[in-house]
């Protein structure tokens, strides 16, 4: 046995070692505290940076539909191909194989991939068949992902209203203005990622709700839109004009049923279209209205009780000299003493100037201002102009006279249409509506837009009297007889304005011809404005614009189920059959080649999508690389070319949709099927 003393010293030394271990342990626990309490947030942040991958769940963009649910803009899922360059083993081989399959330039692709280390798109939004072909190559580092693609099945129809979106962002039109709602809320999902970059699962719950943005239901009626665009185009072409705009309003609600601009564009291929075509000229461009404004000057005088309807004015044979200026009537009228009605019907500048002079600056301004001139209407469309109505203090005597017959004042076609609507509905100015409802993905109503009466601008009796006088315009002896419709009283007004010369000042010899009117005059269902910019064949609204007005009005009335009060009127149908859309060939299947689908991807035969909804058929067809044009709403009733037809690239199909009996509901036979005959 060791002696006691040695034993004791050994134990002391043992305690020293234990003490050292104890100190080390204390240091260790202190270290735990530092890492897990003091630095925890910092370290946790660093850790999360690597294992939490923020996945942006981009919801499918909400659809834009017409008032009956026909699609104007929809999103369909497509495939996109991307490359993770660091995973690629054989870069030239990969680039070559990809280029061959996707129809790209191999060298350019290789260069592009060689320069990148991270995620790189190769080709986006391609047909599923093409994506499958790429997947079948089994190239390491090449991946496909589902991406939604915006599709405009109505093509040119209402394109300037709907606008378009690119790369998930609204760029023009309603797509731009309502981008936030349409896009929906992007959900930032916390995806858990392992060190190999696999996303294990998305922790976010919202994947469901984020699947689609809210949709817009417009006040537009695709059938009327189609009719309006066709007639506008015809009028512009026949008059060899530069451009044209047309607006069809429901006067009692302010809802815009159709809004057309020509020339238009196909939003599916917006990148190939010159920018100036994107403009919705009916709301962005200002025109001097000319004689159409006389209606509102007259209304101002009536509302101000500045004249009696049985009064007469001396029109002095069509010339009125104010200071150094002489005002002339156009068209060589030789009106002497004329009634108020004659002044309007024959569109006498001199007569209107006399009324204006009597009314005075302040009251004329008040009247025009009430009808919305010089102010934006507040319609939900981007880029709207308020145009020009100067303050009355700055009007000269001749300026006052000029403004009263529509010179020296400007307005957008929509401003004019809105003002016309106020006369048509008995004197209440309504803010024009283009969006009727905003609906959440599963149909839940988010917001409904109600008619928005800004207040009475004209007493109803005056509105009635004015409408009656306007009927004279389309009756024999008026300036707009070509706007007359069999069986209906049409209230209208022609307009022929000189275009101001922006460079030289004064007026150029270019004209803007317009016609505005509403039918039936006693109980208007539609208020229509047709404006033709720089017509060549004739400058007169009564010649150039009135026929288009008549055809639009006739088609619209029949479509809306408004039939002539007089039984004598034969049949509304012939007029409808004259509707050009029908006999003109496939409007939606015209010229420009769209996204030339590579030969082979559309191989096979045309699938049968009859009976499917617009979206289902779009998905099915676009997945095969077939370009789709949709007309109408409801389910597919007919397809051209017929199902089973061998496909030739680039393949296109035109689908005619119908709201069948099974679709039920909604206004019964509200939508005629005549278009589809």
């Amino acid at each position: 046995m060791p002696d006691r003393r040695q034993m004791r010293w050994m134990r002391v030394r043992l305690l020293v070692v234990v003490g050292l271990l104890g100190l080390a342990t204390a240091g260790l626990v202190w270290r735990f505290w530092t890492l897990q309490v003091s630095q925890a947030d910092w370290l946790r942040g660093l850790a999360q940076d690597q294992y939490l991958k923020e996945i942006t769940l981009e919801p499918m963009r909400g659809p834009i539909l017409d008032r009956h649910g026909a699609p104007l803009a929809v999103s369909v899922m497509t495939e996109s191909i991307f490359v993770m360059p660091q995973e690629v083993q054989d870069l030239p081989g990969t680039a070559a194989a990809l280029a061959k399959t996707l129809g790209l330039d191999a060298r350019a692709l290789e260069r592009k991939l060689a320069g990148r280390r991270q995620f790189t798109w190769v080709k986006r939004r391609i047909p599923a068949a093409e994506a499958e072909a790429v997947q079948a190559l089994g190239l390491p580092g090449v991946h496909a992902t589902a991406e939604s693609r915006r599709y405009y099945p109505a093509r040119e129809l209402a394109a300037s209203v709907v606008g378009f979106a690119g790369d998930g962002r609204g760029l023009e039109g309603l797509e731009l203005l309502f981008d936030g709602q349409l896009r929906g809320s992007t959900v930032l999902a916390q995806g858990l990622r392992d060190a190999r970059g696999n996303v294990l699962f998305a922790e976010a719950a919202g994947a469901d709700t984020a699947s689609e943005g809210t949709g817009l239901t417009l006040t537009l009626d695709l059938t009327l839109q189609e009719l309006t665009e066709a007639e506008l185009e015809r009028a512009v072409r026949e008059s060899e004009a530069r451009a044209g705009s047309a607006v069809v309003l429901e006067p009692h609600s302010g809802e815009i049923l159709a809004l057309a601009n020509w020339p238009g564009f196909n939003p599916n291929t917006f990148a190939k279209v010159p920018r100036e075509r994107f403009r919705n000229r009916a709301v962005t461009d200002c025109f001097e209205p000319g004689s159409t404004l006389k209606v509102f000057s007259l209304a101002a005088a009536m509302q101000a009780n500045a004249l009696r309807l049985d009064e007469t004015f001396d029109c002095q044979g069509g010339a009125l000299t104010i200071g150094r200026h002489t005002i002339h009537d156009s068209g060589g009228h030789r009106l002497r003493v004329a009634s108020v009605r004659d002044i309007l019907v024959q569109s006498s500048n001199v007569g209107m100037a006399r009324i204006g002079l009597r009314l005075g600056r302040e009251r004329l301004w008040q009247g025009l201002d009430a009808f919305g001139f010089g102010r934006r209407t507040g319609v939900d469309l981007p880029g709207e102009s308020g145009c020009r109505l100067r303050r009355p203090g700055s009007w000269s005597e001749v300026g006052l006279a000029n403004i009263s017959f529509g010179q020296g004042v400007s307005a957008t076609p929509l401003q004019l249409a809105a003002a016309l609507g106020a006369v048509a509905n008995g004197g209440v100015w309504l803010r024009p509506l283009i969006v009727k409802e905003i609906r959440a993905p599963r149909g839940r109503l988010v917001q409904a837009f109600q008619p928005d009466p800004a207040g009475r601008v004209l007493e109803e009796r005056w509105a009635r009297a004015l409408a009656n006088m306007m009927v004279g315009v389309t009756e024999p002896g008026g300036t707009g007889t070509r706007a007359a419709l069999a069986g209906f009283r049409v209230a209208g007004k022609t307009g022929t304005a000189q275009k101001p010369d922006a460079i030289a000042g004064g007026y150029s010899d270019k004209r803007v011809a317009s016609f505005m009117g509403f039918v039936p005059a006693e109980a208007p269902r539609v208020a229509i404005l047709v404006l033709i910019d720089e017509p060549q064949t004739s400058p007169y609204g009564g010649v150039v614009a009135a026929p288009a007005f008549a055809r639009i009005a006739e088609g619209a009335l029949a479509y809306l189920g408004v039939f002539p009060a007089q039984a004598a009127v034969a049949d509304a149908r012939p007029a409808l059959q004259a509707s050009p859309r029908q006999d003109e060939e496939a409007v939606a299947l015209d010229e420009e080649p769209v996204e030339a689908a590579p030969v082979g991807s559309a191989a096979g035969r045309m699938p049968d999508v009859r009976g499917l909804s617009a979206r289902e058929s779009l998905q099915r067809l676009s997945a095969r690389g077939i370009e789709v044009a949709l007309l109408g709403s409801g389910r597919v009733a007919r397809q051209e070319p017929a199902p089973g037809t061998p496909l030739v690239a680039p393949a296109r199909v035109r689908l005619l949709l119908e709201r069948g009996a099974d679709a039920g509901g909604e206004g019964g036979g509200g939508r005629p099927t005549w278009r589809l005959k």
Partner: protein
Amino acid sequence: MTERPAMDSVLLFGVLGLVGFGLVMVYSASAVYAGAELGDPLFYARRQLLHVGLGLAALWLGWRFGYRRLVRWGYPLLMLTVLLLVAVLIPGLGTRVGGSSRWLRLGLMNFQPAELAKVAFVVYLACSLTRKKEQIQAFSVGFLPHMLVSGLLLVLLLLQPDFGTAATLTILLFFLLFVAGTRLSYLAVSALAALPMAYMLVTGSDYRMRRLLAFMDPWADRYNVGYQITESLMSFGSGGVAGVGLGEGKHKLFFLPAAHTDFIFSQVGEELGFVGATALVAVFGVVVWRGVRAAWRAPDLFGTYLAFGLTALIGMQALVNMGVVTGLLPTKGLTLPFVSYGGSSMICMMLAVGLLLDISASTAPEGAEAGAKVTWP
């Protein structure tokens, strides 16, 4: 001889608690990896269960064999260890994993002689120091032979290379010599002499140099040499006070290499937080306390040295492992005793516990203690 005292249940249950906890943590840390790599999430957990079974057998063996009989085994055990350490270096016998040959393939499992070497080294030292008790202060008897034997073992270990075990043995050597009463001047001089050697070792090996650099500033090269340690720090720190919850750790998702072996404590820190990590330290503390208590009460010097050496081995290795995981020490490649995945470590450590239990059960007769002024604990 009176009836044999009962086993130290505090020590036994402390160790069994660590082993059971280790099983849970091994499963938690390895399930995803095993599932992805081997198609069986339970692969490592099941094997660890086998290791625990073998470890319990080793514990029982140590307890039944008794430490006293080990006095005669000190040198043979040392010889066996040297042979195994040589064998592991021979290509064909040793299995190379990740640049070092540390394993002997033994059919069912691979065996790591270095683990045995630690226990055998302690047994040898306890034997030798007991035998030389009188001349312990003599340089040629009490100091030099131990240094030479240790030097041989260290060289063999560094050839693998296994710097961690070598460092552990060195520290154990110093501890035991110190306790046994070697002159402090010898220890101090040899420590000073060891420093340039350690420096040469570190700078002479690219991988050890990089580990050292990574240790000094792990964030400087976070994605290369600093990767494992920074991942470990992020994992450990992410736990915060209470941890993210058992099984909820994220760094085992392939981020942290060796999450279920050497760096399992990092997972403990992440999943159970400061509270869990400190509690684990406390359990090790209890084990060390019971081991020191056994050394204190041992009826003979061999028992004292052996108990102290084995306890120091367990305690040191736990401290060093935790120190590595929390970035206090350079990466070593040492397991956390009883907790980390690994058969050799488990078996050897459990054998050590079996011996400790035996020593603790063989306390000196009542009277022998009477003279000791210090009564501790």
